[in-house]
């Protein structure tokens, strides 16, 4: 079974405790933060374990890359903390579980891994995705969402099988090694979680935005600059691969979109509210949604662009009610291509 | 005996009755049920009776034939059915059951006569083949000889008075829009769509192959059809027999071109568009005809309660245009449709199918509504709005 590469010495030596001090949802002074941090490092119960919104952001905040969030999840599970009510957690484990129905597929490059979101493959269209083939569903699902449920064990149990399925049923038949991750939760799984837990990934994950950027550069002549302000709803999983955030700027530059200056952007990005809702933290949900949307509005955003379908489902309605057009990133690019 | 793929799902109909209605439940939307009202004439009733017949619980009869052949294949039931496991197969299953009746020779005389007219004379109107070209007389249309498109008008375009009128109007607008096309004139053959819908699969396949052979000889790569029925057959059934031609309904070709003619109506006109089943529900084309209307200035477009996938069929589909299995009376779909159109306040019912044209025009007369509303084909409306 995979185990987390977490070095307590690094945490014990940490002075800044950025993992807590930068947290958007837990507020305490440095002394208290150090106290709680030490408890966590020693593997003891801490208020952090109950208050954590599971937004993944501390993975990004940690200056030493010591995986504070994965450690929190490990502790939550070991100490029996359930961020989400148990029936919902159990139900999700079954709902998202592998069905064992995957078979070798006839696929070719570019190869898009839709993750669990096979129902979104209608979005793989137009010149951007010309010639692309897709695969997806519960048998290739990265399962990383179980970080929100304090169930690293589920990921550990399922991920090797998923990787095996992807290799044998999709990657090998396609003749390519590159797997374009439609959802950056998959990209985060293969580039962050897998490394942190020592799980080998035998293919090359490519972030969707990297692929979109490449294609836009190839199709540059057909782009009509959008000349619009676009707010980006950065998903929690992007905290596992913060280096890809700059791809948003690159894409926006190519399609003539402006990423307006916002309070809740980049490292300060706010959660869409979907996970806290599952965690029954309804007041928090209302608060962060209101702040997030008001911030987009104040920044003059005309569009709100999403990477994560779950964020889209959660936030599209409040965004639209504020007069901002919700759109997936690939569709925004297609818009610039006049499609 | 019906194909087991269909036999094996007959029992999965719950007869819950969603199939009687459109998605918004406005009124009964199955023309056969609307007319006859017995449960046996609903799609669910038909499913149960086909099963009873196939299982030997009831024997074939004139009544059973009437029940099976009065389905107009409009696919309202497919749209409305609650059962994902069977809904897409419903109308195909009814056609399969008819095919079984055709094989057993237990079909209504009106249907038998229709097949006979086509087998013997090549068209359901029992008119000589050379008359097929009459619709184009005096228009100076070219024979097909390698133009971009073949314009196929079909039986109604060739022989029905309103169909001929429509064929002329469409041809003239195609020409005026700069579309390169030719016609077959008296060499046209029946497309076979309604033959297939009535269950004579052998004859339908023969007609398809004849048409494909003719088009391939002439090198036809693209076809524009007048009728949504021919559009459906050529687009969806002919490829099963080797056709590779691209097939378009005329509204799809004209839609991007009409706006360039800058059509403007003199005086206001309120138009409601009636979706033909073989263009709409069968092939998902709801947009092009509406876009044509939208491009006409001075035209106010209003929708009936049942439009697009909810549209009430004119009652002519599935061969009923020729076999008249629904008979007469105020509960005929076409008459109900005219009443629905009148309720919108429209002065014009726009059509894009020669069968709908005839069915609705006759229904306007039967409803005594000639003073209130008239039936016009789309290109006729455009032609009125385009400066000479």
């Amino acid at each position, binding site marked *: 079974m995979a185990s987390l590469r977490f070095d307590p010495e690094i945490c014990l030596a940490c002075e800044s405790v950025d993992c807590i001090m930068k947290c958007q949802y837990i507020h305490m002074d440095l002394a208290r933060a150090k106290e709680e941090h030490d408890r966590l490092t020693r593997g003891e119960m801490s208020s952090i374990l109950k208050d954590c919104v599971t937004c993944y952001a501390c993975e990004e905040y940690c200056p030493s890359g010591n995986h504070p969030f994965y450690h929190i999840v490990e502790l939550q599970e070991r100490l029996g903390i359930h961020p989400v009510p148990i*029936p919902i957690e159990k139900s999700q484990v079954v709902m998202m579980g592998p069905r064992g129905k995957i078979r070798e597929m006839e696929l070719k490059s570019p190869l898009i891994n839709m993750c669990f979101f096979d129902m979104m493959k209608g979005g793989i269209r137009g010149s951007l995705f010309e010639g692309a083939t897709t695969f997806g569903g519960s048998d290739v699902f990265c399962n990383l969402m179980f970080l929100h449920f304090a169930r690293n064990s589920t990921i550990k149990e399922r991920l090797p099988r998923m990787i095996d399925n992807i290799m044998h049923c999709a990657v090998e038949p396609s003749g390519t090694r590159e797997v374009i991750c439609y959802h950056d939760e998959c990209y985060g799984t293969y580039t962050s979680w897998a490394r942190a837990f020592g799980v080998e990934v035998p293919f090359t994950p490519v972030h969707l935005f990297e692929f979109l950027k490449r294609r836009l550069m190839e199709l540059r002549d057909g782009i009509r600059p959008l000349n619009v302000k676009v707010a980006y709803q950065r998903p929690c999983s992007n905290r596992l691969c913060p280096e890809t955030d700059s791809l948003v700027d690159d894409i926006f530059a190519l399609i003539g979109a402006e990423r307006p200056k916002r309070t809740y952007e980049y490292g300060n990005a706010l959660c869409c509210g979907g996970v806290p809702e599952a965690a029954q933290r309804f007041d928090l949900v209302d608060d962060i949604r209101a702040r997030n949307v008001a911030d987009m509005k104040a920044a003059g955003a005309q569009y709100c662009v999403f990477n994560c379908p779950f964020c889209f489902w959660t936030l599209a309605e409040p965004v639209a009610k504020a007069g901002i057009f919700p759109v997936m990133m690939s569709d925004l690019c297609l818009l610039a291509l006049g499609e | 005996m019906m194909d087991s793929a269909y036999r094996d799902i007959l029992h*999965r109909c719950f007869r*819950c009755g969603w199939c009687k209605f459109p998605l918004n439940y406005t009124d009964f939307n199955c023309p056969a049920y609307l007319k006859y009202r017995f449960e046996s004439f609903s799609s669910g009733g038909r499913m149960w009776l086909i099963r009873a017949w196939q299982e030997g619980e009831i024997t074939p009869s004139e009544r059973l034939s009437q029940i099976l052949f009065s389905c107009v294949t409009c696919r309202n039931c497919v749209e409305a059915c609650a059962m994902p496991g069977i809904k897409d197969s419903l109308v195909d299953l009814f056609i399969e059951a008819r095919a079984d009746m055709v094989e057993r020779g237990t079909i209504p005389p009106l249907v038998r006569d229709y097949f006979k007219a086509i087998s013997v004379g090549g068209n359901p109107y029992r008119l000589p083949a050379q008359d097929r070209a009459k619709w184009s007389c005096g228009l100076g249309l070219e024979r097909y000889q390698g133009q971009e498109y073949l314009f196929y008008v079909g039986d109604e375009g060739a022989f029905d008075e309103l169909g001929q009128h429509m064929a002329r109007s469409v041809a003239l607008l195609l020409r005026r829009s700069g579309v390169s096309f030719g016609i077959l004139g008296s060499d046209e053959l029946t497309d076979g769509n309604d033959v297939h819908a009535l269950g004579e699969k052998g004859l339908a396949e023969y007609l398809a192959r004849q048409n494909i052979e003719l088009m391939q000889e002439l090198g036809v790569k693209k076809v524009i059809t007048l009728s949504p029925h021919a559009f459906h057959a050529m687009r969806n059934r002919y490829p099963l027999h080797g056709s590779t031609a691209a097939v378009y309904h005329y509204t799809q070709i004209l839609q991007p071109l009409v706006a360039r003619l800058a059509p403007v109506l003199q005086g206001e006109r309120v138009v409601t568009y009636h979706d033909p089943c073989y263009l709409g529900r069968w092939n998902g084309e709801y947009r092009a005809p509406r876009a044509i209307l939208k491009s006409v200035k001075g035209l106010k477009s209003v929708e009936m309660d049942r439009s697009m996938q909810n549209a009430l069929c004119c009652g002519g589909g599935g061969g009923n245009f020729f076999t008249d299995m629904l008979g007469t009376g105020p509960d005929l779909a076409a008459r109900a449709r005219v009443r629905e159109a009148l309720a919108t306040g429209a002065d014009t019912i726009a059509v894009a199918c020669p069968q709908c044209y005839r069915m609705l025009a006759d229904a306007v007369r039967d409803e005594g509504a000639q003073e209130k509303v008239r039936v016009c084909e789309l290109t006729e409306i455009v032609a009125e709005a385009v400066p000479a």
Partner: protein
Amino acid sequence: MDRSAVIERLKAIVGGAYVSDAAEELYIYSRDQGVQDPHLPDWVAMPASTGEVASILELASREKIPVVPMGGGLVLSGLSVPLRGGIVLDMKRMNRILEVNEHSHYAVVEAGTSQGMLDAYLRKHHPGLKHSLPDAPPAATIAGNIAIHGSGHLSQSEGGFHSEMVTGLEVVLSTGEVVKLGSCSTVPAWFSRAPLPDLVGLFLGWNGTTGVITKVGIKLFPRPKFHDVLVYMTEDIDLAPMVLNRVIATSMAEDINYALAPKPDYLNGFQMTVINYTANSEDELIFKRKKLRSVLQDLYETRQSGFMPIPPHMKAGFLEAPQKALSKFADVRKGGGFEYVGAIMPIERIPDACRAGMEITERHAITYSLGARIIGRGSCAMFFFAYPFNRVDKGEVERVKEALEETNETALRLGGIPWKTEVQGQRLILERMDPATKGLMRRIRGVLDPQGIMNPGNWEVT
């Protein structure tokens, strides 16, 4: 009068096209979607007016021919199957909406008017009003539903069973006499059954054994513009009465349903309380949502239960009325059938009913969906034991039949009463009924149906 004379007379009454004794119609009208045995009618007739119904009943009375009225034909328990032959009256040609009173909030419809058509009519012409839709498909009729004491999506918040929402009736008696009941009997309006002696009840719950309903006055209710749903998930059946009562007590839920089923597999072992709520403004909707959540806060903070996140595509299904998903249930066994015992019972018996349903289905090797709708702000629950079956699997059909009979007995043992139950279930009820009540029922039947022609076989007090 011989058969041919009867059919000629029927044709003279309703028109030749609307009478049939063809094998095909007799087959279809001899059975419903459930597991009860078929019984062939002799004729099927479709009247278009009260006058035609009266003429048919005069004929039937004179000739002692059984008459069985049928609405949508969706009852599943064989109540419109002619147990002793005779005439099935398919009422669906009588489907005119005669009046909608915007100010006094009622509609008057002919008996064959479907739920779907009334809903569509109100949405178009009176968008501020709605009626309580049952969970049946839109083809179910208003009259059929009130006649069986149906319930629906406003039964929780707006006054109980649909039979309680009836403001008046027009009924044809077995003799052919036409009677009006409620305010319409005295003044030309259908607003109320009070203050008159209430005769409406003589035709509700009687399964067509006392007369044929030809017109119905039915209450309408405001249709708020905003609508949303919460789904509370539990893993402990015994929590049901508490969860339900807390939600009821808010007075903010329009409809409250409780359900459990082994399929889909991710819901197996869990229960869902589905809370629909409506509002006239977004602020009001948010207020109600907060209030509804707050009453369960101490429960969800234990993490033993909680509100399910509902993605938009799932939410649309919960907000839909009538719900297609309920018809789809018939295909769970890929066999086009389901049966159920509805049992009206006290809310506190829901856990026991759930356990009993699971135990019965396990023993009979069938699957299930169990649950309840809250009625009348918590006066009782309409519990359902629903068993899907594959129509071609004769063994399964038999097992479902046995399970149904057992479920009827169980429902009674638990203190409930089977709803719109088939003849065997009616007998079980009558066995337990107060003798004086049964005696009164018999005397009423004797007065209203002296010839014994009205849906004979139903509610037979021996």
